[in-house]
């Protein structure tokens, strides 16, 4: 685990937003560069090798998913944190399934964002309340027993509990206190959920996201 101030690049097609994030993170994070398109981002990441890429979900030319796919082919250990104003579940789920280690909304405060960046750098997952809600929703239906891989297709009741508190906006240490477990254990549960989210064969995941899109 690396320590110290994490380094990031900001990938977003809105300059005002990049400037805003850079200002917010000024003393907390080292910003190595900014990119506003998919190609630019791929080159920049290869050149600067940041700890974490702050990645907009929506971008012309394939969006965040395309960036992740390209970078993973040369740097499989690169860590991504998705940032978005879009709350469309299909986009969020897609970018997390592609390999982002977390998703936060753009309304997040500077210190919270810096904290999230550090956590992603350390290999943990970062779930915003909204992502927790999406996951609870997507894993809500019970599958027929013969189709289920319990390792990947189901959440444990403890994981559900943790996600519920995240959805309610509680911090990890508050959740740890409530459940009488350590913050590290909370982290472990969240990482386990992330893994399930990325690897589960639940064919509903995409169908669910699309259907939610229609409802929202």
């Amino acid at each position, binding site marked *: 685990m690396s320590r110290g101030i994490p380094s990031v690049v900001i990938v977003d097609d809105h300059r005002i937003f990049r400037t805003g994030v850079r200002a917010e993170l000024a003393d907390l994070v080292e910003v190595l560069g900014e990119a506003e398109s998919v190609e630019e981002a791929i080159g920049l990441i290869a050149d600067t090798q940041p700890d974490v890429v702050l990645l907009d979900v929506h971008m012309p030319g394939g969006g965040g998913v395309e960036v992740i796919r390209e970078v993973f082919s040369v740097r499989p250990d690169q860590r991504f944190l998705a940032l978005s104003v879009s709350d469309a579940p299909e986009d969020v789920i897609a970018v997390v399934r592609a390999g982002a280690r977390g998703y936060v909304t753009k*309304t997040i405060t500077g210190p919270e964002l810096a904290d999230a960046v550090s956590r992603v750098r350390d290999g943990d997952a970062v779930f915003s309340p909204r992502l927790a*809600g999406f996951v609870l929703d997507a894993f809500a239906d019970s599958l027929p027993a013969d189709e289920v891989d319990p390792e990947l297709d189901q959440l444990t009741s403890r994981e559900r509990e943790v996600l519920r508190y995240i959805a309610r906006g509680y911090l990890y240490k508050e959740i740890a206190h409530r459940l009488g477990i350590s913050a590290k254990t909370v982290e472990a549960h969240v990482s386990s959920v992330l893994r399930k989210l990325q690897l589960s064969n639940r064919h509903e995941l995409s169908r669910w996201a699309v259907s939610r899109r229609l409802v929202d």
Partner: protein
Amino acid sequence: MGKPASQPLRRDEANSVVAGVCAGIGRRFAIDPAVPRIGFVVIAIGTSGIGALAYLLLWAVIPAETGDGEPRRPRRRGSWRIATGVGLLALSIVLAFRQLGVWWSDALVWPLVLAAFGVALLWSLTRPAPEESPAEAATDGARRARRSREAAGRFSLAGFGVALVLGAGLLFLWANGVLDAAGDAALAALVVIVGLGLVLAPLWWRFARSLAAERAERIRSQERAELAAHLHDSVLQTLALVQRRADDPSDVAQLARRQERELRAWLAGAPPLAPGERLADALRAAAVEIEETRGTPIEVVVVGDCPLDDRLEAFVAATREALTNAAKFAADGGPIRLYAEIEDARVKAFVDDRGEGFDPDRVPPDRRGLRESIIGRIERQGGHAEVRSGPGRGTEVELTLARSE
């Protein structure tokens, strides 16, 4: 009786002894109703009961007076008079049957007459008391005195009626020699059961009526509580906001306009549910509305969804009130969070804030918001509300409601 000739023959139930036949005849021909009454009794005795059959026939044929011809004397027919009338009628019928050669035996007939008399007495007591005139109702003491007098009178009459019916039963048993020959227990039991049924039926009837009245009262008070909760959520909240923003005329005007629209819509009757309305949308809309009115950010996460119904509307209203409370008292603690979980069996909503918190045991009882608009509202729908807070540690409100079906 101004123009008697122009009036058709009608039974005058208001002045009746039995069914108002004689009173009607008397009115129609402008004579004292006592004349036809005495006439009927004489004929009935003279013909050994045929006259009574004629009376029954007239009862059936002549319609009762309807409409509002003359102001009636609103009065209760005395229980005694009805009972006597029915008893006499029963006697007449029996005599008529005897005259016609149909006669069972003294052992059957006399108990029958006695029982008819007693049952008529009991049943006449179960009719509701007449409406009180306002003047009577005005003095509480007088009314109570009158009530207790009436109750006592009714009680002794009822006792007499019961005695008559039971006596008739015993008379029947004795006359048939069943009391001696105890072997015929089945007949004895049957008679007792029939007697008890006749006696208890009026009591049961009254009991059912008072249950219905109580239920109506409960519904009325529930409606009052809903109305109070609605006024609190809308009008009182707006007035509080208006006071706080008194220095900004355009803000105040906007608040007043919105409240007016809302109140008008409500008075015109709540709009029917649009078929497409969903609970998740309603919760989000409520959060947006409070965010706009209060200027406090609210983060909403909803898991699952379902169509709205009346109970879920109440659930949304309670959630909205919890959000309003949080926006009012905990706005400086950062965004308010609403998390809702909609499952097949139940819906759940959490409203969390990081405000100053409070001691739930020390909320003044007049704080309608918490007690009525949130807890009361959910509990009236059979749900459950829990408020956890403490000084310095924020507040969480948990609302749970089982879904219908």
